[in-house]
């Protein structure tokens, strides 16, 4: 049970980073911490004691496998997380070129 609680703490650390830091790069870092904790939580749910990795093989007959369904879903989520992070970083590049800073307090003008 303590593993779930530690996962939740990692999520809260990411949340704190997003809400209190003023640097775009640090906001992206905090967002990735939240993503990581959710991935780990989902994989933890599917774990079975003494289970094998979900790969069929002839040597181990009637083996117990860990749940492959959360793993497949998390695999999808990881790739989507990479795409959104790349998008955020591109926006950071453009903001830096325009305003010469990563500070979101300075980014106040609406004109693109």
């Amino acid at each position, binding site marked *: *049970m303590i593993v779930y609680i530690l996962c939740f703490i990692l999520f809260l650390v990411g*949340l704190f980073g997003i809400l209190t830091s003023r640097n775009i790069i*640090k906001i992206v*870092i905090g967002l990735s911490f939240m993503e990581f904790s959710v991935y780990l939580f989902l*994989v933890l749910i599917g774990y079975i004691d003494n289970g094998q990795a979900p790969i069929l093989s002839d040597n181990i007959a009637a083996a117990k496998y*860990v749940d492959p369904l959360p793993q*497949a*879903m998390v695999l999808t989520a990881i790739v989507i997380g990479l795409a959104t992070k790349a998008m955020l970083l591109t926006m950071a590049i453009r903001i830096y070129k325009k305003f010469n800073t990563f500070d979101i307090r300075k980014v106040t003008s609406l004109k693109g």
Partner: protein
Amino acid sequence: MEITLSILLVFMIVGAVYALFAKDLLSALISCGIVGYGLVICFLLLKAPDLAIVQIVVETITLVIMVAVILDSTRKDLKENIVIREKGIPFINARYVFNVLTVVVLTLFFLFFFNQAIDRLEPLGQHVTRMATGYIENAAEKTGSANLVTGIIFDFRGYDTLGEATILFTAVMGVLTILRLKGRKEQVNGE
């Protein structure tokens, strides 16, 4: 098993906290790498080799992109101070207090739902497969793949992968659109 994972997770949390409070952006990125690669080891311990491989690749790519973004920019930290001084008179920064209050309120909000969720969860390792039982039994003959995760992603849950490909395509189009330096030239009158 649980103890090993807990030690790893405490290590990751320490790295995460250091990343948020680091003075230099480059060291913040390196500590972000601690969390990402710690996650890889957790995946390996949890018998998820496919996830570990994908996470290594994704983490490396993200680190390289982030370092490329910050390398030719200012790396100085832009932290919000609790006390700001204006003409020598100290003020309490209202925005910082508001942000911390938001964090506290959201923490309580999430804690409520976490409490409700933790009541229904089985303890670690006591999971009983419900939906995946059919997948495990029939995957070999229905999909012909020895790797169950591959079989689920590309066969049983093929539509999810289609949606994932759509999102990837959209993200790539967005990146190309934002990064394009010049817009299309406006047509000159009279041509």
